Every structure is written in C-alpha cells, then in structure tokens.
C-alpha cells in the first residue's frame, strides 16, 4: 500500500477519470501551468491539452454557467471554485441552473458536472476564505454534496462524482490536503451516499464529516481512556444521506453528538438532529447535541480563530454533556 496526500489523491482520481472518459474536462482559474494552488491539476495541461484543461479568467459566475451549458451538451466538467467562499459570485448557475435543469425540462437533460471547492478554517485566512457553507448546497434540491475526510475516500468519491449524472458539490477541507494516508491498490470507486463507520462504539454516536472526522476520532481515543466507547460515523456524503447507517448506530448507542465545523445556525448538523428527532425519538436516551462553529465571522487573529471552530476538546465536552458525565 502506498501513501498519498488528499490533494494528490484527488489529482489521481481526476486523472484516471480524464483518461477513462474524454468528455471529462477541468475548468477553473490557474488550472494550467500552475496546476491549481494545491497542485490538484498539476501536469494536466501537458497531458490533456487546452481543450480539456480550461484555464479561465476570474469570472466564476460565467465559467460555472458555461460548465452547465457544456454539461447539457454531454461534456462532464469538473469546475473549481478556488475557495468555497466565492460561491457568492457563482450561486445562480449552481442553484438555479445546474440544480434545476433536469426537473424543469421534465427529465430531458442531465447536468453531469462537479463543483470542487476547498472549505474550512484554521489557516488564518480570515473572514472571506475560511467558511464551510454546506447548507447553501444541501438546501437546494437537485444538488448532491460530498465532503471526504481521507485521501482514499477523496479519490474514490471524486471518481463517483465525475461519473454521476447529477451536479455534485465536492467540498475539500484545505487542512486535509497535506495529510497523507494509505491508499487502496487498483481502481476503485466509492459510491455516493454511503457513510463509513470509522470507529465502532456502544455508548455514543458522533456523526460528522470532512476534517471534523479526524477531530472526532481524536476525541474518541481520549474518551476511551475514560471508559467511554464512542462510535464515529463519517458521513462522506451529505446528499444523498446514508440514513440507514445513522439509524443503525443511533439504535445501538442511543446517544448522539453531531459535529460540524461550519456556523451552527442553520447548519447541516441541525438537519441531521431534526431527522433523528423525527424518526428515532424513542431510541434516544438524551437529546442530540450539536458541536459546531460559532455564529460569527471567521476571525483572522490566531487565538480567535482557534476559538471559532470546534476542536477535539469541544467534542469531548459535547459527548460528556450528552452522557451527563
């Protein structure tokens, strides 16, 4: 088994898909010579040429809309927003065009595009470069939303996203890019909508995704020392949601903490919490509790930023609160 960083793993997944299907293209700023700020498309221009590596001007609204048009004609664009925060300038083509096209045309046409976007705080990138913003996507019917936590998952999921006939939002945490991990041998695809129980436990379930999976695992190890046996579910995909996995775990542990990095108010954690309330109320020994980012603007100053988003200690505190220990 070899090790890869998440950025290299995503690169590998994209590379394989571009080799496999000539309709797959990449679209975005600095995708060519530079190969994107994180090296995701390094070498692609030489390999696939300028017809398949579309290096755009800073015109997110139009290059995203352009990708919708190309997707309607059978191209499979993988578009990049340099930071998810920039969705503010490109929301219409995602929410009103890509997401709605199939339905509004009565099923005539698919929009098989992927929007890749780095998310997350912790890099001192301040207010406009540190957000997660999942609910802006999960609220919009017609979008699928993926947020991997490991290099191996990222590769398998980006391949699934490229092959999916629906628009897929693929959220990559910037502080995961450099983390290396084991990669499976050979070709593989991880289907969208399948969660991963990354740690089994019987006392409490932590449901989370993206970078917080790592923090949840850290918290779980700490808690194990105190005799608390934590199950950690890495959702991997927010839409479609793996409800069966959630249900099985909640029915086993009867205690739940949902963890997300993004702003708490109207976050996706609340959606999960309310679904559990609605359907698994009788399974609960305690209220589902959310551990989430504060409802503030991401601050620049390091001590403030560190206080802004959850860390393993916050998760531990959340678990203890739920278990009343």
């Amino acid at each position, binding site marked *: 088994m070899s090790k890869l960083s998440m950025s290299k793993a995503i690169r590998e997944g994209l590379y394989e898909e571009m080799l496999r299907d000539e309709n797959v293209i990449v679209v975005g700023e600095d995708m060519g010579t530079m190969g994107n700020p994180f090296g995701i498309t390094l070498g692609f221009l030489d390999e696939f040429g300028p017809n398949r590596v579309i290096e755009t001007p800073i015109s997110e*609204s139009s290059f995203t*809309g352009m990708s919708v048009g190309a997707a309607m004609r059978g191209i499979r664009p993988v578009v990049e927003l340099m930071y998810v925060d920039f969705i503010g300038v490109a929301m219409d083509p995602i929410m009103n065009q890509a997401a709605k096209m199939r339905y509004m045309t009565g099923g*005539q046409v698919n929009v098989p595009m992927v929007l890749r976007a780095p998310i997350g705080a912790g890099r001192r990138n301040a207010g406009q470069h540190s957000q997660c913003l999942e609910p802006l996507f999960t609220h919009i019917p017609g979008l699928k939303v993926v947020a991997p936590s490991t290099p191996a998952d990222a590769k398998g999921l980006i391949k699934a996203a490229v092959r999916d006939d629906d628009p897929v939002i693929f959220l990559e945490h910037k502080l995961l890019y450099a983390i290396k991990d084991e990669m499976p041998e050979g070709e593989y695809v991880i289907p969208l909508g399948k969660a991963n129980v990354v740690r089994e436990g019987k006392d409490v379930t932590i449901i989370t995704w993206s970078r917080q999976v790592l923090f949840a695992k850290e918290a779980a190890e700490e808690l194990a020392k105190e005799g608390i046996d934590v199950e950690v579910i890495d959702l991997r995909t927010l839409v479609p949601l793996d409800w069966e996995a959630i249900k099985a775990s909640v029915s086993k542990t009867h205690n739940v903490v949902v963890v997300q990095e993004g702003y708490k108010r109207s976050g996706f954690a609340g959606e999960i919490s309310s679904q559990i309330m609605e359907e698994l109320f009788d399974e609960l020994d305690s209220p589902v509790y959310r551990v989430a980012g504060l409802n503030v603007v991401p601050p620049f100053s390091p001590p403030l930023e560190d206080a802004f988003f959850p860390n393993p200690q916050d998760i531990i505190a959340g678990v203890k609160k739920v278990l009343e220990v």
Partner: protein
Amino acid sequence: MSKKKYSKELFLSMYEDMVRIRKFEIKLTECFMKGMLAGNIHTCVGQEATIVGTCYALEKRDFITATHRGHGHCIAKGAKTDKMMAELFGKVTGYCRGKGGSMHVADLDLGILGANGIVGAGIPIATGSGLTSKIKGTDEVTLSFFGDAASNQGTFHESINMASAWKLPVVYLCENNQYGVSVNIKSVTNTESIAVRAKAYNIPGVTCDGNDVLAVFETVQEAVAHARDKKGPSIVECVTYRMRGHYEGDPASYRSKEVTEEWAKKDPIKAFGEKLLEMDVTQEELDAIDAAMDAEIEAAMQFALDSPYPDVSEVTLDVYASDNERSVAR
C-alpha cells in the same frame, strides 16, 4: 439586400413562422384574460422579425438559449405549437411535462437549450455550448438571445470576454426592445448602442433594424458564418419594440402611447407581408397562411386543453438522474 438569392418558399416559410408566433401569443393573451392560464406570460408581439430572421440564419444542428420572453425563440427554432401550448397549460404532454412552464421550455433535440427565468443566465450556458463544439471539433454554432437590459448583467461581460479569448462559435444576439420591465435602456446606460460594447472584446458588433426580417436574416447570417469559420463570437443587436406589456397584465404605463403607436406602424409582419406582395407573392397565399395558422393554433390549444395534468406523483420525479427517491426524501 439581394433578395434574388433566396427562394419564395423560404420567404413564405419565414412569414408563416412570424404569423405562427404572433397567433400563438395572441391566443395566450386571450387565455390569460379568461383566467385559463397561470404564471407570468411574456409575449414577443412586435419582435417576430428579429426572432424569425435570426433563427432562419441557423441550421437545425445549431443551438440557442432563449429568454423569459422565449415562446418565439422556441417556435422559430422548430418547437411545435401544440407541445408548447400544452407546456404553458401545465400539461404532461408539454415539452417539459408541464414542470417548466412558459419560462423554461426546452427541447434538446431541436437545439433549444432552454428558456431561462434568470436574466443573463442563458449567456454563459450558450458560451458553454460553444465551448463544447470547440472541444468536440464540430461546427455547430450557438446563438444566445438576450435583451437590452440583460446586457448590463455581469454574465454578458464575463461570457463574451471568454468567448473572444477562446474564439468560441457563439453569436450574442441582443433583442433591443429598449426596455427592461419599465426601465428604458437609455436611462441606465450611456452608450449609443449595445453593439458598441463589442469593442471591449475586440470582436465584431453590429446593429440592425430588428423589425426588418430580411435585414436581421442577412446580418445574423454573417455573424453565424464568422462563428462557423472559427473566427470567434460577435454581437448582433436588433433594435425593435415590444408591443404589449412586459408580462400580461402590465399596462405599460411607463411608456408614451405615441411612441408605441409609431412602432405599431412598423409592425414586422405587416411590413414583410407588403414586401412579399411586391415580389411574386399573392394576397391569397398570405391569407392561406393566416388561415392555416389560425387552425394550427386553435388545434394546439385544443390539444393542451384535452391533455391531462401530470400525475401528482410526478412532483418528486426527476429532481435527480440517479438516486432520486433517496435524495428527495432526505
């Protein structure tokens, strides 16, 4: 223009399509008044020369994006009035099974990449279609209809800049009917024309009389040839006038009656009919077209009325191409 080059059949066909569009929309306005039709109905009455002249400059394999004012665009590109009418009535026999309605008619087989309810949103979509032709090495041209007001949307600038940089085979067709909803273009821009903006992208930009179907036809043909020859995009501006309110129910009291009456005299269908009579077309031929169109539109309405609504279960259908049930449920 040298009318000799074109056949009488072609001209009669253009005339027929202009009449078809007009009668289709007049029928809509009647139905709307009677409360038979719901939603926002934007007609293009008065703009038929721009629409038909433009679409006749395209091949069947070419693509268009239409606007919120898109009935004419779709019909001129080959859409059938019965399926159009059914769509506007929300019936399952419509182009989009009734799910799209007036602002979202699409038929990919006809090269109609969809009308669009977001002003300016069709421009990047057309640009992406142009990019596709370039990637695939095929020679279809894509034409994007948009209004004068849409030319102030950021997507206009961004998209045309990209198309110019990459020499995409796209024609940007501005239907300058001089108004957004109530806002005259002169009050929100400071240029003589929309076409002059082509200079900002170093591409051809031309303005023509949008009520003269043959002028439009010839002008757009040049832009299409330019695109087809891989010389890149251009802007064509057709100056015309919308004779009715922005949508049905709008009394259009923001414009002067006099100006509207002046434009009524320049009715594009009447003007073209007169031109045809000066050529070797007879009044009987025109009347026959008129009658045929009356019958077609009546039948289209009947088809719409007779068609069923989609079954209520369709409400959750086709949000997603795969995993639809699960993704809709949670």
